[in-house]
């Protein structure tokens, strides 16, 4: 059983062909660094998102490796070229079987 959480992606709904579009992707996740302690002094184990990918009509166009140094509720802003209409799929994979998927449609003319 994989755990998941809410995600939000900001992508323009339409774009001119071959224009550069900005994508903002944020997901709800504590990104427990593994360096924090409970009040009783017990170490809280690491539990973070490890990989973020963006696929454009099933072709991976962007990937990022996250480490404990990435802040909670991780945000990533990047660009991609609007090549064709289709589906952008965003995937977050992390510790303890974490997986979140978000899709957005784009119309390119």
């Amino acid at each position: 059983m994989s755990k998941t959480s809410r995600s939000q992606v900001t992508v323009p709904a339409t774009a001119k062909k071959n224009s550069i579009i900005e994508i903002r992707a944020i997901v709800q996740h504590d990104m427990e660094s593994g360096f924090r302690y409970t009040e009783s002094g017990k170490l809280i184990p690491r539990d973070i998102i490890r990989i973020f990918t963006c696929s454009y009509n099933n072709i991976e166009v962007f990937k990022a490796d996250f480490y404990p140094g990435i802040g909670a509720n991780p945000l990533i802003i990047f660009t991609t070229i609007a090549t064709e209409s289709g589906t952008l799929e965003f995937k977050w994979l992390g510790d303890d079987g974490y997986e979140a998927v978000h899709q957005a449609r784009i119309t390119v003319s």
Partner: protein
Amino acid sequence: MNMKFNSPLKIHRRTWMQQLQKLALLAFGTYLMPSIALAKKEEADEAIQKITSGAKIQEGRVTLTIPPLVENGNLVVLKVSVDSPMTANDYVKVIHVIAEGNPLPNIFAAYLTPRSGTANITTRVRLADSQRVWAIVQMSNGSFWQGSAETLVTLSACTEMV
């Protein structure tokens, strides 16, 4: 009133001189062996070495932007911008961000393609302390470039943990 101050002050001065000598020795020693204070920087250098496999890193083309003064190190906006045409023959392959003052130097790595359009990345990172942060960039032709930025990290007065 006749208070005798002579003897106690002489001994006091001697003790003071001895303490000053010890302090000077300690300061000199630290100067020769800064490893304790800069242990984290060594880890950062190691992490960078791993990325480049010892290849030469050139200065320039990479701009790392973080606020010069940070109110809370838990969520700091960090932007990397690389000067590159981003064409099929000349593009940015990987952007690595390394923090000198964090318990783990590697913060993130972004993998781009000619389809990326620009090599501009923004994210939000944790900074454990005031420090210098590095962006090590690998180009499609295998060359490495770097940029860095320094910041001061402060903390609010009234926190949860006393």
